[in-house]
């Protein structure tokens, strides 16, 4: 039949070019990371020191977890600006629960994570049911979470008891190569989050609908997918990851710092974009996001070692974001 020859031709060439381009994109972000590492290690002998690598790991963890979470809403074609301040709010909740609520540390952690999920649920509901655009809804949540953090903490940092072991969650070391490098637990948590996130995105119903929402929401709706419901779930999941990030940052600082948080959302979105996830939705990967998070922290760290002023670090980070997206657009156009 005619259809046979017709489809064969198109599927053959299209598939080949697709494989090529997807592979290209993964290589691009990864290659950028490798090039940065090579350049910095050539420029400064301090860069590849174990202490410094540990530092990079530790500073990637929080941004990485936030970025993994926000990858989900970005793949749906949405955005979440509230992840940074929600993270802080969750840290405050955990600190309050443990220091004043008298609950055990695991319960406090659970409380923090669930708080994040709740904030995400509210975001999702406002966006999905009340039809407020994601940008506006989550911008609102950014301020709400920031305000609530300050109110609850009475404008002061809340410190965990020394010796409570809470900080080990982030700065402790379970995995290490003795005498060579100690891998901080925080980054293990991030890798764990990445594995779970990647699994959800590629293998579960939620992941499939995340892509479907970003690719053609109306088509998904007409196909009988409860798009409103799944959108809420996606925002809830992103909030849950923010909660996890809140716990990790609290553990790392052994305190909840209520004034922190704003600006973190932009670092996370930058990591997602550098990792090749399209802001218009439908495409993206957790792997790319993790690479993107490392690109940002390696860049910041390397420039600091070379004593480049912080202002210039920002300028360069900005340029890299634009170049990354430009290369991605260029790939797509071909």
């Amino acid at each position: 039949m005619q259809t046979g020859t017709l489809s064969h031709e198109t599927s053959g060439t299209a598939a080949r070019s697709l494989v090529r381009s997807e592979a290209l994109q993964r290589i691009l972000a990864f290659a950028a990371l490798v090039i940065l590492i090579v350049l910095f290690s050539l420029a400064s002998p301090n860069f590849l020191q174990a202490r410094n690598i540990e530092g990079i790991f530790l500073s990637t963890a929080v941004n990485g977890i936030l970025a993994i979470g926000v990858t989900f809403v970005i793949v749906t074609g949405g955005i979440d600006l509230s992840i940074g301040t929600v993270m802080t709010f969750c840290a405050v909740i955990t600190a309050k629960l443990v220091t004043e609520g008298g609950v055990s540390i695991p319960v406090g952690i659970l409380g923090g994570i669930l708080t994040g999920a709740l904030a995400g649920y509210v975001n999702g509901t406002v966006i999905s049911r009340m039809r407020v655009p994601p940008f506006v809804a989550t911008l609102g949540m950014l301020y709400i979470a920031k305000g609530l953090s300050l109110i609850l903490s009475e404008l002061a940092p809340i410190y965990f008891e020394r010796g409570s072991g809470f900080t080990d969650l982030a700065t402790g070391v379970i995995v290490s190569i003795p005498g060579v490098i100690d891998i901080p637990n925080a980054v293990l948590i991030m890798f764990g989050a990445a594995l779970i996130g990647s699994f959800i995105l590629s293998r579960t119903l939620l992941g499939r609908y995340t892509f479907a929402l970003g690719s053609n929401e109306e088509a998904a709706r007409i196909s009988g997918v409860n798009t409103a419901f799944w959108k809420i779930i996606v925002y809830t999941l992103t909030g849950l990851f923010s909660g996890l990030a809140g716990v990790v940052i609290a553990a790392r600082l052994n305190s909840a710092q209520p004034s922190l948080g704003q600006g973190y959302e932009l670092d996370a979105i930058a990591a997602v974009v550098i990792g090749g996830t399209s802001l218009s939705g439908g495409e993206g990967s957790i792997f790319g996001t993790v690479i993107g998070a490392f690109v940002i922290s390696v860049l910041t760290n390397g420039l600091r070692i070379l004593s480049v002023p912080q202002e210039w670090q920002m300028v360069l980070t900005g340029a890299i974001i634009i170049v990354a997206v430009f290369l991605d657009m260029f790939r797509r156009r071909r």
Partner: protein
Amino acid sequence: MADYLVQMQGIDKSFDNVAACVNCQFELLAGEVHALVGENGAGKSTLMKILAGVYRKDAGQIFLRGQEVDIHNPHSAQMLGITMIHQELNLMPHLTVAQNIFIGREPRHSIPFLLDELATNQRAKEILSQLHLNLNPKQRVGGLSVALQQMVEITKALSYNSQVMIMDEPTAALTEAEIEELFHMIHRLRDQGMGIVYISHRMEEIKRISDRVTVMRDGRYIETLLTPETTIDRVISLMVGRTIYESKPELPDTKSAEVVLEVKNLNRGRELRDVNFHLERGEILGFAGLMGAGRTEVARAIVGADPCDTIELKIMGKPVTIRSPKDAVQHGIGYLSEDRKRFGLVVGMDLANNVGMASMTKFLSTLGIINDKKIAETANDHVDALAIKTPSVHQRVRNLSGGNQQKVVIAKWLCADTDILIFDEPTRGIDVGAKSEIYRLLNELARHGKSIIMISSELPEILRMSHRIIVMCEGRITGELTSAEATQEKIMQFATQRSELVEKSREANLSTH
């Protein structure tokens, strides 16, 4: 009474107090192709969207095999075996063929929420092979042609064990060969006992494919006819509620020998090769050819929308350089895209602003403030002159019918004082009644000294409207005909010439070796 697969009775539906369907009825038998026709805005899509659960009816009853059913969303329609294949295909381009087919009811592992990708692909493969479709289930849908995407939609419909399939303008974006393929598929499905509703503007297709025709007009049911016992003229006259004459109208004899536009040496890679032609004042110059012959590309190159390797342009005998559509407008050239909604109109804005869009600077006060009143007045004049049907100039363009939207685009270019108008498929997606009005308007414009290039894939339209016809094939101009000597056969000869030459030279090469 016959055993109806679907019966719809007394269906009412209105949007914002505008009635789209009034007391409509529709009956579908198993194993028939039932065409549903009517002008744009006649309510046929609305009626079918109610059946498919996209819209909810305000009143009326729907029976499926004699049982009254409540269809409250697309999902419940699908569960009842009713699927609609929408004009704008409802697929997710980033997902694979198999993922698209099973969206909303993915095969799962025993663990909740975990997808069984293997089973998804396997089952997709089975259904595809039942339909004799050689598609790779793992192929991303975005990389497929429109025709194949449509096949994916049909496959999806069948995977629901659908008994009722509604197709909304399925052939709008297909080539002749692909239409044949689709018709084979429709016949096969019909013979298996499926009831198929076929919405289309193309009368020849309806005559060929359908068993019965139901005509709607102004949101009302008019009549159902047996296709073999009726004629196209009869159907059309029911649609428009008056008899229209398809006879060849007189072309305005106002064209002068004055050359207003001269295009020379237009080249771009392998897409456009050595294109040369000229346009005279008051002339309608038809551009004929098959899909992908390069006609739209020529138009876009002239107005500077796409870059080209070489081009020499003369307007009124003077050489000009056009680097962007803005330059083109300043030189009095307007391009009316075939895709009005994407390139021609800002559908979310009102009629007045759309009319003024290409000439906003005319409506600025000295302080740079836009004079909305003046825009509205100008728009009003054009509404009257072009007989645009709209409640007011403040109506959003989205809410106008296709024919009226096209008139708004024309008004926009008239407002910008363009003398050369390039129409790309001016009547695509426009119903029969509005078509003849657009034709009348084109003649009118030519009579008033505008020069018109009309790109069209419909040969009757080209023959009826053009003073002179240029035929393209594979990026080259292969022939030029005057209206007196042109016939469908001659045009098709030129339109297919190039590939034959290639074939011949290839054969010649082979024989020498």
